[in-house]
């Protein structure tokens, strides 16, 4: 019977093309708006590293001076989310986590060895310890992370993104080849595969939805080469550096290094907090850490919420979008009532020749499903369009990120069909209830 009902459904939709179009477009607009909002909301709120989000921690120390706190939030003092260079290095040397890394950043003109200077591009570069790659589950297309010696000595090695590898080396394995950062040559040891953590939990809030940086070098290489771009880092001080030199920056009480540690489990957290407490007490003996010892560990989710990259509670825009979908479906429902009302004569006839109420419900349900399916399909296109517009409106969201996953595509179609059925059920049941004898003279 399914084939028969499908045939009848298409005949019925063709019979009233304008009404059918209105029903489909009404569902499509509602679905498009709801799924655009849902997709953006889902992508912004997703766990960037589900397998480890409970084990990775952002470390915070209250290194600010005694005169005034770093910040006050909701009446409470809060420490900075970044550390001084000396604290980052002390924690790194203590090796109290399973893995750990400071994260630095800077910008510099880069180019291929054979490229002329005129083709150099300003590139945002990340610096880290090699642990970062395994901590953040960075996949490699070619090669891998640099070795421990490179970390310690600050050798001129680099891991580059697949995108940069495509540009400089046409996608070929570039491990062992070199590129120029500034005028210095760096040997490529690894090329990352597709790696787009969403959000980029380890970066500043404003860059959380940008794509990862194209080049990663050892943290100590940045330090040894005094690579510094003041516009590329948050550099916050309670006491100015003694002079403008790079060594003064490193020795200062200014915070600028993000520090991440991987612990064996969430339960290991209190042990590491004890370590931080001991560390801060130890630093007091050197005249530092004179404020309350507000050392903190935030796992990935907590850190994202605390830095307001993600929201903890529900998204009002999402609720509004689904309310709008509800309004669209109510409109569609009114059109279905009108459509099925015109079919009471046919219902009477079909009942007279032997169709049961269930047969009538099944026939109209298939028609409603097709309306939902077409509405969902068109809604998908509108949602894609909505995502393109959203990416253009919000420059901090990079376009490639705003793509529907396969799961969301399936969910869109299922949502369109089920919501069309849910709102179509009442008109369908109403139509099936028609007293056949009352309609047989009106066909």
């Amino acid at each position: 019977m399914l084939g028969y009902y499908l045939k009848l459904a298409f005949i019925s939709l063709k019979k009233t093309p304008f009404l059918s179009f209105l029903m489909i477009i009404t569902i499509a607009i509602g679905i498009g708006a709801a799924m655009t909002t849902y997709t953006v909301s889902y992508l912004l709120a997703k766990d960037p590293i589900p397998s480890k989000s409970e084990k990775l921690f952002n470390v915070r120390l209250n290194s600010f001076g005694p005169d005034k706190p770093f910040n006050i939030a909701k009446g409470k003092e809060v420490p900075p989310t970044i550390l001084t260079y000396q604290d980052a290095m002390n924690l790194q040397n203590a090796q109290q986590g399973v893995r750990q890394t400071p994260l630095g950043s800077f910008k510099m003109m880069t180019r291929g060895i054979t490229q002329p200077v005129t083709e150099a591009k300003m590139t945002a570069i990340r610096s880290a310890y090699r642990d970062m790659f395994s901590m953040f589950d960075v996949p490699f297309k070619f090669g891998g992370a640099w070795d421990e010696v490179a970390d310690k000595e600050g050798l001129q090695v680099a891991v580059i993104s697949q995108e940069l590898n495509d540009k400089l080396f046409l996608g070929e394995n570039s491990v062992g080849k070199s590129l120029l950062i500034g005028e210095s040559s760096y040997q490529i040891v690894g090329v990352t595969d597709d790696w787009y953590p969403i959000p980029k939990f380890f970066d500043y809030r404003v860059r959380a939805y940008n794509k990862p940086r194209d080049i990663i070098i050892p943290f100590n290489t940045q330090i040894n080469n005094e690579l510094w771009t003041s516009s590329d880092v948050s550099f916050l001080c309670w006491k100015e550096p003694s002079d403008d030199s790079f060594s003064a920056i490193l020795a200062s009480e200014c915070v600028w290094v993000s520090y991440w540690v991987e612990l064996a489990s969430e339960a290991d957290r209190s042990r590491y907090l004890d370590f931080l407490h001991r560390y801060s007490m130890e630093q007091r003996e050197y005249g530092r850490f004179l404020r309350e010892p507000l050392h903190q560990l935030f796992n990935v989710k907590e850190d994202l919420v605390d830095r307001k990259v993600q929201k903890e509670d529900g998204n009002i825009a999402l609720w509004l979008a689904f309310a709008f979908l509800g309004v669209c479906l109510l409109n569609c429902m009114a059109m279905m009532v009108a459509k099925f009302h015109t079919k009471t004569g046919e219902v009477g006839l079909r009942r007279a020749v032997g169709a049961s109420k269930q047969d009538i419900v099944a026939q109209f349900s298939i028609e409603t499903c097709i309306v939902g399916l077409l509405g969902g399909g068109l809604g998908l296109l509108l949602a894609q369009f909505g995502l393109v517009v959203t990416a253009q409106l919000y420059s901090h969201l990079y376009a490639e990120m705003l793509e529907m996953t396969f799961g969301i595509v399936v969910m869109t179609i299922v949502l369109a069909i089920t919501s069309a059925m849910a709102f179509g059920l009442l008109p369908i049941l109403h139509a099936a209830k028609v007293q056949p004898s009352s309609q047989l003279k009106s066909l």
Partner: protein
Amino acid sequence: MLSMRHLSKAYHTDTIKTQALQPFDLTIEQGEFVAIIGPSGSGKTTFLNITGLLEDFCEGSYELDGVNVEHLSDKAKSKLRNEKVGFIFQSFNLIPELTLYDNVDMPLRYRKLSSKERHERIMDALGKVGLASRRDHYPAQLSGGQQQRVAIARAIAGKPSFLLADEPTGNLDSKMAEGIMALLEDINAQGTSIVMVTHDPNQAARAQRVIEIRDGILSEGKRIEKAIA
């Protein structure tokens, strides 16, 4: 066989009760051709609807081919109607968007027959009414008489025991009406019972039995002689 005992029908509103059919007994044997006559509003169509299981009755009992219909579910009634009853309406009631083939196919679809068997029955029914060659035409491409023939094909395709016809020639000119009556007589001659509501005494005269309904009261009418014409 169709058997009704002390069967009655009344319509109720909040304040008014309208007795559409007074209690009556009626038996129609297999193969009979019965004409139902009476003035407009007398209850003829109500009687036909109850007979065809399209409306419930209020009191009494009704057996259709040995099945007591009183406590049947909607699904069971639909199945019984599909298998035992064929309807022919005054205004043909063909679905304009469907071809003649698909219109005739309609009752067979609800019987879960194989596509081969459905095809054979459809072509057989269309052949009996002389329209097999126009199976892919649409109702609007036919004359009124031809449309009624398609409606008859639809009614007989399921090989029902009873054909219930509500003024089947009411919308046709006399020539077309004669053709339809001849077709109904042919079908009746092959063993299908026909219950036909009509205002036309000439057509009623062609039935083997006449039942008159007046003010909701059924009475066995006298055999109308063709001489009236």
